[in-house]
């Protein structure tokens, strides 16, 4: 245990970064998922094609590759753009935080696209018809009937997406984000104790995932009070 002395605060800051990446990528993931689902469910052929391409690419390639390509790819593109304005610029560095956050949000968002699409289709057509027959507008029906019914359907798989997201934050260490795994690698070069240092990372991630699992269970219980729990 003494070997860990001096590393605790590094791990703590690493955990804070994990939490930050998780929060930011969660918001983006929901956004990408909803846009993807809306595109797939729309009547617009082009939107459908783009959304299909999105899910095929991001579900079909290794996550670590997506992170690397997005990081270096965006750096190349930004550098090229910057050089138009100032030819002296050698290299524009993309912050690993944002490159990594966007990358994992895009990856998990592609899975969420399918989840949200299925959940929207899972809303009973009868509820929607009843709302329309009562004179509610499509927008009112969407807000008051579809959304409240779809999130209950989407929640269990969505819990899995959140777990994927928090675990994927560890991959961002590869592009130099100083989250917990990155801290562990540094600590290992100094102390030469890989097992201990990696175990700490494992415990931190287990803490995060337990928190997520418990919250999802709580929300599920709340959502189901009107159905199974009510009997």
């Amino acid at each position, binding site marked *: 245990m003494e070997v860990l002395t001096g590393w605790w605060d590094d791990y703590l800051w690493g955990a804070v970064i994990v939490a930050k990446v998780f929060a930011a990528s969660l918001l983006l993931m929901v956004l990408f998922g909803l846009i993807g689902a809306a595109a797939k469910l729309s009547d617009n052929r082009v939107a459908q094609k783009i959304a299909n391409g999105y899910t095929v690419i991001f579900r079909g390639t290794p996550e670590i590759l997506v992170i690397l390509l997005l990081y270096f790819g965006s750096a190349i593109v930004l550098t090229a753009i910057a050089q138009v304005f100032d030819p002296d610029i050698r290299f524009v560095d993309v912050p690993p935080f944002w490159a990594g956050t966007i990358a994992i949000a895009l990856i998990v968002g592609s899975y969420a696209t399918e989840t949200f699409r299925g959940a929207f289709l899972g809303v*009973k057509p*009868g*509820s929607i*018809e*009843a*709302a*329309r*027959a*009562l*004179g*509610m*507008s499509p927008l*009112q029906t969407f807000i*008051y*009937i579809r959304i*409240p*019914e779809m999130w*209950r359907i989407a929640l269990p798989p969505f819990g899995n997406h959140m777990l994927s997201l928090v675990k994927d934050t560890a991959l961002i260490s590869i592009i130099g984000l100083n989250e917990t795994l990155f801290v562990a690698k540094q600590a290992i070069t100094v102390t030469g104790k890989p097992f201990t240092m990696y175990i700490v990372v494992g415990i931190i991630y287990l803490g995060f995932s337990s928190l997520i699992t418990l919250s999802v269970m709580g929300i599920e219980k709340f959502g189901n*009070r*009107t*159905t199974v729990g*009510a*009997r």
Partner: protein
Amino acid sequence: MTDDNSRPLIQMVKVDKFFGSFQALRNIDLEVQKGERIVICGPSGSGKSTLIRCINRLEKHNAGEIIIDGIELTDKVEDIDAVRREVGMVFQNFNLFPHMTIVKNLMIAQQLVRKTSKDESRKLAMRYLERVKIPEQADKYPIQLSGGQQQRVAIARALCMEPEIILFDEPTSALDPEMINEVLDVMVDLAKEGMTMICVTHEMGFARSVADRIIFMDEGEIVEQAEPAAFFDNPKSERTRAFLDQILSH
């Protein structure tokens, strides 16, 4: 409007409806006067449900005219909304909103569509729940109620919008036999109060005692329409006779 009393509440003129290449309604002509109680019957797939679903534009007709209380149903959204405010509907599977309590089910459209205040809409909701004799279920969720209770809630929900017309789409077909009467009782009460009703049903006892007119449909056409006595005792069409023999044979 000068001709308010003579003008039919519902007017369908030469209405056709297709699902792909399948013709669900053929040349439907129908007029319903205010206060009339119509029962529509016929074999399954004969277009009964499609007909009433065209009246509030849950289905879009492909040809002909549908005019509800002077408003012609076209693609104009304002007209569709106006018609839906006048026409209530009760579905075979109740279609209550599962995530809302009973009283919320009755309040939501009042608040959103008629812009009634929360207090007012709750008051009206409770009044109609009392009318269908289940005020004590107000704070429960739909799944906690029996099918018959759910259907009575669905009728109360339609009444809360104070419609001119109520459409019933096989309201008792999804119910256990012991629950059918509690729903029919509510419908009989409504009929006595002078509500204009169009009811797709196989409950021939109800049809005989309540309907002003019975319409028999087959293959998308109105084959025959008559007063109950004439319809049951002296059907003109061969198809009507065959249908009646089938459903009344037990």
